[in-house]
Structure formats: C-alpha cells, structure tokens
C-alpha cells in the first residue's frame, strides 16, 4: 500500500510525457488521411481520404528520393563499417608506430563533424568532381570516428587468448579479424548501424548544399523542397509526404526495437 500511490503517480506521469512526446507523430498520421480543411479544425468525425498521398505521389518523385536515400544510407553504412573495422583493429591490437597520435587525430572528428565544415568541404567535393552525386553526399562521412572509437572499445574487450589460439591454427591477421573479432562485435555493429542509419536518413544540411537534381536528392532535401513554406503550406499533404519518407525507418524500428535496445546494452555504448 505504501508503494501504491507513488507507483500510480509515476505511471501517470510517464504516460502523460509519452503522450506529449508522440503527439506530433500522431497528428501527422491523422492529418495525412484527412482533407486539409478538416485537419486544421480537428474534426474527428471528418471523412478519411487517400487524396493527400495521391497528390504527393504525383507532385514529387518520392520513390526516386527514397531510392536515393536508400542507396546512400546502405553505401555509407558498408563503407563506414569496413573502414572502421580495419582501423579499429589496428588501433586496438597492433601497437604500431604513431598509432596513438593517429588515434588522437581520428578523435578530432567526434567534435568537428562535416556539417560544420560545409563551405570548405563543398569546395573539396566539387574539385574532386563529385558535386551533385551520391558519392559526393556520402564521401565526407565515409570514415566515421565514432565507428572507429566504438569498435576499438569492443575489440579491446575481446580476450587476447582467442587471438593467440586462432594464430596457432594458422590464421592470418586479417583472417583473425574476420573470424574472431567481427563476429564477437556484432552487437556493436548493430548499435552503430542504428545510429548511422537514422543519422544519415535524416541528414539535411550537407545534402542540401551538395545535391542539385532529382537523381541525387535524398528524401530530406526532397521533402524540404516539397514542403517549403514559401509555396504556401498544405499540412495534410506535408503530413502524407512525411509519413512516406519516415515509413521505412519507422517500420524497421518497430520490428527490431527489442534487438536494437539489446544490442545497445551489449555494445558497450554507455
């Protein structure tokens, strides 16, 4: 009995906060299926419609934007994982000359992220001939200090004996990395993957600067152009467009949220 009242209060507070937090998404969901004039008045009994989705689909090449984002996010994740794995392994297990200085240099990117350097990076990517291309959007992020840092932590926690055992069996260095280290760091890869995917799915400023055309624009930039307030705001259509662009990520998260949180706990991000 002594614990009942605090428990009820806590539950109530937790739920109130949750409802406040989810309400923008709920509103977007609701507005997307209603006519604009009804959505503005919260007419709960107003008729449902798919009209907004149709208009959005017709007015902007969202499938193409989604494809761009998908290619971008996948390509980036692969390159980040490969590059980070190689570097993290070297930093964790090879006591090589200049390693700690190099590692300190890598960590600089934790603070100085590519967003902050848009002006100079824009010049560099243009000079390399990658302006307005998916490669150009991805390049500044292809090597991730955060990924290197995380993987180094988790590689370091792997017992050296496993390493030696594999070496006795004649495994090469890269063989050990692939057979021993990578499998044991799977939770870290999953947790990092979640952070990377949601970051790049949502990234806006750099893609806005570097992409020019429908063929390269990711969803965020397409959405910003579609919903730019300059052209007069139509919230129902924007809500529909928003739902289209977040759907894949949201569904993936709903399906895998348990695994995600578990891998977060196991990954050592804490």
């Amino acid at each position, binding site marked *: 009995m002594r614990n009942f009242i605090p428990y009820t209060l806590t539950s109530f507070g937790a739920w109130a906060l949750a409802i406040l937090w989810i309400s923008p998404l709920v509103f977007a969901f609701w507005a997307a299926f209603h006519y604009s*004039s009804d959505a503005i008045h919260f007419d709960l009994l107003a008729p449902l419609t798919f009209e907004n989705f149709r208009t959005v689909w017709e007015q902007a090449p969202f499938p193409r934007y989604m494809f761009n984002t998908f290619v971008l996010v996948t390509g980036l994740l692969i390159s980040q994982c490969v590059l980070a794995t190689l570097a993290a392994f070297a930093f964790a297990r090879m006591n090589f000359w200049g390693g700690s200085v190099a590692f300190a240099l890598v960590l600089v990117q934790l603070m100085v992220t590519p967003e902050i350097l848009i002006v100079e990076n824009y010049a560099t990517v243009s000079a390399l001939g990658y302006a307005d291309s998916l490669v150009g959007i991805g390049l500044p992020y292809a090597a991730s200090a955060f990924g290197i840092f995380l993987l180094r932590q988790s590689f370091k926690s792997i017992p050296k004996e496993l390493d030696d055992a594999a070496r006795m069996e004649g495994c090469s260095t890269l063989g050990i990395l692939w057979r021993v280290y990578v499998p044991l760091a799977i939770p870290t890869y999953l947790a990092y993957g979640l952070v990377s995917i949601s970051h790049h799915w949502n990234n806006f400023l750099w893609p806005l600067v570097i992409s020019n055309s429908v063929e390269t624009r990711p969803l965020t930039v397409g959405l910003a152009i579609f919903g730019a307030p300059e052209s007069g705001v139509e919230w129902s259509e924007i809500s529909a467009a928003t739902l289209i662009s977040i759907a894949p990520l949201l569904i993936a998260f709903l399906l895998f949220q348990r695994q995600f949180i578990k891998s977060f706990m196991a990954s050592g991000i804490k």
Partner: protein
Amino acid sequence: MGATMALSAGVAAAKTSLTMYYPVAVGGPLTKIVDGIVADFEKQNPDIDVNAIYAGNYNDARIKALAALKSGQPAQLSVMFSIDIYDLIEQDAIVAFDDVVSTDEEKAWLKSFYPALMENGQTLGKTWGVPFQRSTIVMYYNKDAFRAAGLDAENPPKTWEELVAAGKKLTKKDGSQWGMMIPSTGYPYWMFGALTKQNGQVLMNADGTETYFNNPKVVEALSFWKDLSQKHEVMPKGAIEWGTLRKNFLEQKTAIMWHSTGNLTTVKKNAKFDFGVAMLPGNPSRGTPTGGGNFYIFKKSSDEEKKAALKLIKFMTSPKNAAKWSMETGYIGVSPEAYKTKELKEYAKSFPPAAVARDQLNFATAELSTYQTGRVRKLLDDALQAAIAGGKTPEEVLNDAQARATQLLKPYK
C-alpha cells in the same frame, strides 16, 4: 550495322541538350505545368533535349545554378530571381540578350514584353533577364466578410485611410477575424516596396548602387505598416508568416491579405467564400513592385546552346504559353499579346481578378535589387522585422540599415 551506328551517333551529336533550373515561390503543382510546356517544346524541336530541374525557392535555384556553373556541370539557362541580375553580372555568369538575338524577329520579340516587367532585367544599357513567372502584389479580400461588416464588397479600399477604416470594421474584438494581414517573413522587403511606392518613393536607384532606406517617405511608410498592428489594431502583432498567410485567408481568419498574384489560382480553387482581388491602395497614388523570376542565359554555353536556349525561352514566353501559364498560376501574362489570345481573353472576362495584376502594371516599379543584393536585402528585411515585431522605431532601424547598405555599396559607385 556499322552504318546504323554511325547514323545514330550523328543524330546524337546533332542533338543539343539544355539544363535549366527553375524555382517556384508560390503555391500549387507548378512543376507539372513547367514540365508540360517543356514536353511540348521537345516535341516541336526533336533536336533539342531539355532537362528542367525544380530547385526549390528563388534562393535555392540561384545557389544550385551557380554551383553547377562552378562545378563544371553547367546549366545553359535558368529561371532565377529577377533581382539576382547584379550578382549574376558581377559573377560574370550571364550574357545580355542583346548579344544573343540576331534576326529582326528575335529583336522584335525582345521588345514585346510589358515595360514594367523589363525594369528589373535591364542595366548598363542592356537586357539581361526576360520575364517569365512575374507577379505583382495584389489585395485579396473576403467579400462575404465585407458584406457582413456593412462594407461595399464591390468597392474595396483605394487609399490608406479607407484601408484602415475598413480594417477597423472587419476586425472582430474576440480575435476570430482580423481586418488585414501583410506578410512580414519570406519577402518583407517586397511588401515594403509597395508601401513606399504608394507613398511616392522608390527604394533604390536604377544602377543598383544606391539605396534610399532612410528617406522620410520610406520611414513614413514603415510607420504606417507598424501602426496597422500597434495603433489601429487591425493586424496581429509580431511577424506574419508568408507561407501560412494563404491558409489564414482561406480559413477566414483575416478579411484582407496582401500577397503575390501567383497565389490566385490556388485561392480560387480553395476559397469556400466569395472573394475579390483588387489593386493595392495608394497614398494617394497606387503602387506595387513587380516580382518573380526572369530567364537568364549563361555565358559558359556554346553558341549553339545559346541559340537553343533562346528558342526555348521564346517558346515559353510566347503569347500562347504565357496565357496558359497565367491561367494555371495567376502569374502575369508577360506580354500584351498574351492577353489578346482567345483563351486568356475569355478567362479574364469570366474571372475578372485574372486581369488585376496586369492592370496594376501601370503603377508598378522595380523590385529592390542592388549589387550585393542578398546582403542589402537582408539588411532591409531585418530592419523591417525589428520595427514590426521587435518594437524598435522606424527611424532607428532604417537609418542603421541605410548606413550599412551605403558601406556595402561603396565599391560599386
């Protein structure tokens, strides 16, 4: 087999391809309409391939086009803000149309537009921009609300005094309906250009090297704008958002809005009440800046591409397409000939608001445009918002903006 390949290679080489960026600053599915006109053009000119890219708002379109030029994947032509002219000249990015037109017919075409629409496209004795999606500011008003307030719905205010008087009658004390709204985000300097013109003063000289921000008549115009909310209380306080204003009007939260004529078709489609469109009032003479986008041709293009670009521009500004564009959007048909086409004539007869923006060209002036236009424009925008939403006095902010603008423009004198 070899012959076919040679043949197709020959065709491919003869085909000129053009890349064009264009912006949309006001409502509706305008991209579809542009795509449609471009498709018609390609059908008529199988040797020209057009890649029309929608780039967002005016600022985005300029950034994208200039970025493309620098990165070696240039566009040959673009629709960009008419006020970008000085920046584009300074960047050495565009050619004057006078240097591209050659035949008599082309020269005549260059003279076929409304003179008021040419003002922002001409400087240094040449024409650098050709009007395409051009607008003026018009006054949209809710006739039902006018009648309910006991006002004559067919005689909207013609002077500032009448505007304030009508606004007072239209404003409901419970806050459910405002008398009027003039947007103060997005393009505040543009709205302000109308007020100053009405008060008998323009904002800059014709060379783009001098501004008149602290001229007494300009200060007076800003005082009037500020008074609408502070003293007369016919307009809400704080900044009024350009993008959501149309919704406010359609939801009958304001009886009058000043907005681009480019919204006309969307308002027509969505208004659930009887609305009218009128020229802006005067103090005493009417006035509005023109606005919107011009065609520019980029210098980096080959002669062949320039010719093809000219052809495309001529096609898109032809009376038939200008009429179609005007009907679908509300933008002004750019030449008198457009209003002589059967379609637009009939449309204007059945829907008189369609001709208001054109008639207003008689009172129009150029939109604020100078060298370093982005900075100068932002100086004025900030000053206006500081006075309207921030409680500073008009004299103070405009003196400051003028001093800074003079500093910026010093090297160009």
